[in-house]
């Protein structure tokens, strides 16, 4: 069944969209990741204009994180104060990101920016994840594997503007969380991702937050920042396609339920290595686009940024 997307102005098969949503949903259920960083490039591949893909994906992430946030609030695993500090940074970052996005859109370079960001981030994240999980598998074969001790004191504690975060049991400067928030906000605006794959490691390794509050707090930050990003894209670029978002979302929610169940039967390292491979494949496909001589050197666009 073909469906005409009112904002993207392309006609796409509705089942293809449901299927894509489902597939990414399964992955996010299996690996516990948001999936935005896989969904957005997949949308490029099926012919959705990158500007629409990024804005719509931001909208979809708000929705798919919503029930997760509620669950974490019920379990009291959200550090609200830390979340608010991260959000403050996130909003600044998102506003800056959309500014850059719109400037480059007017210059005709926004597709390049988005794709380059994806190649760099997917390449780095996929590569690191692959090496780390390979090591973990090798190590677990050798011995029982010792847990790495968390660094106790670092440069983080030397910074001013300290604040007490009771839920996380931390007394640290607000500068690092704000910086983390800003960088994640920029990513959300330019790449249409939640940024959990950057924020979660940053919260654990840089801020030293306890693992049990990390997911809930990051979701709390993501939901506000992506909602803000959606509004910015909707009001400046008119590129949020609600029909596309809802179709992806329905597929995604169903997929996530299936994925969670599959995830139970697989070992964590195996899961991670699978995800890493997938990320590397998507990254490679995007990189080819930029590196290989295109069959058509010319592209058509509307006149200037509306």
């Amino acid at each position: 069944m073909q469906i005409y997307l009112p904002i993207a102005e392309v006609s796409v098969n509705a089942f293809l969209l449901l299927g894509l949503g489902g597939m990414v949903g399964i992955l996010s259920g299996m690996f516990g990741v948001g999936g935005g960083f896989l969904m957005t490039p997949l949308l490029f591949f099926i012919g959705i204009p990158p500007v629409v893909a990024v804005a719509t994906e931001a909208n979809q992430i708000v929705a798919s994180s919503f029930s997760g946030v509620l669950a974490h609030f019920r379990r009291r695993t959200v550090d609200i104060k830390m979340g608010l500090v991260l959000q403050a940074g996130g909003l600044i970052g998102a506003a800056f990101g959309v500014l850059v996005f719109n400037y480059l859109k007017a210059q005709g370079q926004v597709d390049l920016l988005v794709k380059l960001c994806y190649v760099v981030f997917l390449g780095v994240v996929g590569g690191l994840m692959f090496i780390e999980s390979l090591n973990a598998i090798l190590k677990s074969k050798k011995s029982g594997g010792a847990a790495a001790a968390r660094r106790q004191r670092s440069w983080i504690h030397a910074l001013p503007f300290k604040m007490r975060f009771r839920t996380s049991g931390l007394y640290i400067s607000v500068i690092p969380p704000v910086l983390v928030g800003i960088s994640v906000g920029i990513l959300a605006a330019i790449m249409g991702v939640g940024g959990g794959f950057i924020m979660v490691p940053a919260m654990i390794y840089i801020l030293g937050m306890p693992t049990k509050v990390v997911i809930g707090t990051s979701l709390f930050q993501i939901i506000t920042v992506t909602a803000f990003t959606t509004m910015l894209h909707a009001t400046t670029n008119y590129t949020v396609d609600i029909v596309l978002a809802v179709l992806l979302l329905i597929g995604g929610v169903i997929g996530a339920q299936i994925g969670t169940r599959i995830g139970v039967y697989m070992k964590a390292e195996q899961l991670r290595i699978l995800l890493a491979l997938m990320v590397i494949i998507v990254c490679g496909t995007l990189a080819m686009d930029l590196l290989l001589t295109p069959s058509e050197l010319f592209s058509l666009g509307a006149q200037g940024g509306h």
Partner: protein
Amino acid sequence: MRFLLIAILLFALPVQAAEEEVVLGLSQDRVAITADFDGSEILIFGAVKRETPIPVTEPLQVIVTVSGPQQPVLVRRKERKFGIWINVDSVLVDSAPTFYAVATSAPFDQVITDTEDLRYRISIKRAIRSVGAAMHIRGAQDFADAVVRVRESEELYSVRENTVAVDQQTLFRTAIDMPADLTEGDYTARIFLTRNGKVVSHYETNIDVRKVGLERFLYSMSREQPFWYGLMSLAIAIAAGWGASAAFRLLRNN
């Protein structure tokens, strides 16, 4: 069979007119882009009205064009820089139809001469105007050619030779396929009658291509009230996501 009726009616009516004139029918004069829009086919048919006997010279030929709204197009060119392909320069082509189809009753060069083509802007390359294109960029013509090439590959531009059926030099008909990725606006259908490569008569009519229903509502809301559209998108998406996972929770608990 409506065109037959029209034709019969015409022959019955004695009207003073030029030698040969077009009388036209369309299977539809509006195309509605709905949520399940998957392209459209428009049947264009008509008859030739004449007071004098059919001339015995060259046979009558018919050209039908359907053109989308004329819009400026910004064409960008990629070049390899630092190992990757990036857009380096651009040319604004003043006016190019978003859709253009030419159907003829014989090979194009046999139905019309070059001068007549130039005058009526019938062939694809003549339908695009780029007079104001920046001349400082080398090969500005390449950019105009690129518009044609890209849109031909997307099946938005096409020349369909020998697809107009002409019967007894009087009745003609053709079907024009329009793809799913249409831009809305006022489309123009033009019909040219030619003899010896000269246009003897032409006729023009409009086809209205519009998004309707939900498509119309969402599109205009996103442009006219972007703030509320954004809020609505968030609310709908949250409701859908939350509803779907709540439904799953219920299913699991039962």
